[in-house]
């Protein structure tokens, strides 16, 4: 009797698991095959009197989530045809990979712009050119470089939400104590950094300038008058005298003037940030650090200037930032566009978002507002954005930089490789990585 019960029980368990599994499979199968018009028509349209619900994905939690939700609420209150819902996806891109083709696609997404070149050719993003023409949105209102980064093959895939670029942060107290002016050229940068550095025997007390991130090579190369990729956009273009001049500057500052020590800032969090604790006099960072540094008030008296110009007076910085894109898998693209247009092509709404989140918007007319005009901390960034360039538009660019170029630069900074070898090896490895990651059809 007992045995029989045991048998029955286990059978039941096995069957229930089987059932659960097959159920899931069925669901997946049903949803993966759904470009089906049946499903589309079954969803409620605005004409029925019911509002259309659309989903907005983003990977910003915490403060960012609150800011997004404020915008969503404001939009939902402004009309009664569309209801937007913000969904936080911590691992948004990975989630989108499966969702894009299996029916769970979001309607509109918060988008790190540089990804456009990888995803647009896969037909998972919806071009907005027709909407732009229909609604008469002026492209000239946006930063050209940001629009470029959201474009692929002549099609535009979204509007820029934020723009950013690195500029030079400096500690005003230290500069006053050493009687120095913030640098405007490489030469001044090097001499200032040397004057501000303090060693105590073998211990670095104050670093004059941060050389911790070899990934900023792109920005220095622009200042030297060079560019990362050739005109055909299929190979690297830094193995030349311009690249050498960047490495010479680094070598001079790190190894001769000893204004920095490798690993000096590694692992330091917000409260122990070397710039905050007065252990670092100058560094390159972006407007996203303004709110953090301002929190320290009187304890951290800092200024910002545009990046110093290179030996021939060339200026350079790298523009980055986010946009909003509409997913090709969305069933409510028109409604998603309405939301995007409301947020990003309307000065009041752009300002509502910018003031709340302290981001520089990609919509230029909003920058005339006193919020940006009268606060001097924005000016250096707005000046920098005038000449900042986006990363080269190649699907393999980030891999080339991260796996080909930066490791070689790190060997150079450690003194294990001379400048000529560094650039030669970076070029060889970088070009191969570009080739291997080029086809994105």
């Amino acid at each position, binding site marked *: 009797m007992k045995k029989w019960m*045991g*048998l029955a029980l*286990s*059978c039941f*368990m*096995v069957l229930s*698991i*089987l059932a659960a*599994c097959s159920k899931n499979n069925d669901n997946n199968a049903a949803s993966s095959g759904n470009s089906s018009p049946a499903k589309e028509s079954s969803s409620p349209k605005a004409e029925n009197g019911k509002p259309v619900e659309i989903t907005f994905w983003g990977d910003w939690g915490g403060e960012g989530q609150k800011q997004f939700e404020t915008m969503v609420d404001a939009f939902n209150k402004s009309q009664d045809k569309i209801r937007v819902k913000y969904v936080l996806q911590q691992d948004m*891109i*990975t989630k989108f*990979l*499966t969702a*894009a*083709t299996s029916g769970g696609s979001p309607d509109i997404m918060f988008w790190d712009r540089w990804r456009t070149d*990888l*995803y647009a050719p*896969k*037909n*998972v993003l919806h071009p907005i050119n027709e909407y732009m023409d229909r609604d008469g949105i002026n492209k000239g209102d946006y930063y050209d470089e940001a629009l470029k980064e959201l474009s692929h093959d002549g099609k535009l895939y979204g509007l820029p939400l934020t723009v950013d670029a690195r500029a030079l942060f400096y500690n005003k107290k230290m500069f006053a104590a050493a009687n120095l002016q913030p640098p405007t050229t490489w030469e001044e940068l090097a001499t200032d950094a040397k004057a501000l550095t303090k060693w105590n025997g*073998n*211990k*670095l007390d104050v670093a004059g300038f941060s050389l911790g991130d070899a990934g900023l090579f792109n920005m220095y190369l622009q200042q030297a008058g060079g560019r990362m990729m050739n005109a055909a956009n299929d190979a690297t273009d830094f193995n030349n005298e311009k690249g050498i001049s960047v490495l010479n500057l680094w070598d001079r500052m790190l190894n001769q003037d000893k204004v920095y*020590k*490798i*690993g*000096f800032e*590694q*692992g*330091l969090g917000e409260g*122990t940030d070397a710039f905050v604790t007065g252990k670092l006099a100058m560094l390159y960072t972006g407007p996203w650090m303004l709110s953090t540094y301002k929190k320290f008030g009187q304890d951290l008296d800092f200024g910002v200037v545009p990046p110093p110009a290179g030996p021939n007076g060339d200026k350079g910085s790298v523009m980055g930032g986010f946009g909003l894109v509409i997913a090709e898998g969305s069933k409510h693209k028109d409604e998603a566009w309405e939301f995007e247009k409301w947020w990003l092509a309307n000065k009041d709404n752009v300002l509502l978002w910018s003031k709340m989140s302290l981001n520089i918007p990609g919509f230029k007319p909003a920058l005339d507002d006193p919020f940006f005009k009268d606060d001097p901390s924005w000016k250096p960034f707005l000046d920098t954005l005038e000449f900042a360039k986006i990363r080269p538009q190649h*699907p*393999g660019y*980030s*891999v080339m930089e991260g*796996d080909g170029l*930066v*490791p*070689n630069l*790190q*060997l150079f900074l*450690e003194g*294990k490789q001379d400048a000529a070898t560094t650039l030669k090896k970076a070029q060889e*490895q970088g070009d*191969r*990585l570009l080739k*291997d*990651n080029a086809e*994105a*059809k």
Partner: protein
Amino acid sequence: MLRSRKLNGHQARMAYLFISPTILLFAVFTVIPVFMAFYLSFTNYDVLSRMDWIGLANYRKLINDDLLWQTFRNVLYYTVIFVPLNILTSLLVALLLNKARMGVKVFRTLNYLPTLTSAVAAATVWLWILHPEFGLLNGFLGYFGITGPAWLSQTDTAMASVIMVTLWQAIGSNMVIYLAGLQGVPDYLYESAKLDGANALQRFRFITWPQLRPTTFLVSTMSIIGALQLFDQAFVLTQGGPANATKTPVYLIYQQGFNQLQMGYASSQAFVLALAILIFSLVNMKLSKAEESIV
């Protein structure tokens, strides 16, 4: 005789029945995906738009992928240092804590604690300890007039630092396994050896070590697999740098598959890694078989 066989048959049936849920889950979530990945490694699958058969092209591409081979050299180096050290230290700690003394449970707990902390949180703390200027370790070395290196930012010390941190975290669980093994060694073996005049070292060499053979096999196999799949701690500590010195195959596979959308190629890389793990495990099996148990 017949009766007992019948009983065995019945027991076997029940046993299969009881393990069937696990086997089923294993099949659905492990075996089937493995076969799918094997198929994908012969395609240009990009998750989003295509899945065409391209034959051996991915595997041909692998041969010239210098970065992949560098990551393999990195984890091989890591494995060769990490696995023996791991066995040695966890066995030593287990031997020390095998005695029934006052307070030994406290020490067992303390040694096990690092295993309980999340890898990422522990790595963050180690980032601090290993900081070149303000870190505990270099501060300590400073008392002896030694200027410590930038542990995680220099190519010579980065991998050694990763080994140190992962070892610190791995010892606890292996110590527990060894403790269980040590408790299973019958006391009469030691007693008779003592009667025959064997000293402590001989007792360890001829009783403890051979008796622990299955335990050592388990510990070494698990740590070989873990070592070749190194990812999270190394990633938090160094992000694969400096100069790719701590970049691992798993990191590369993830990047290739999810960031570059070359899932087919990433699958072929994953199969090379699986093959490497298989080879290492087989070698390990041979080594542990070679040393025949005495009892």
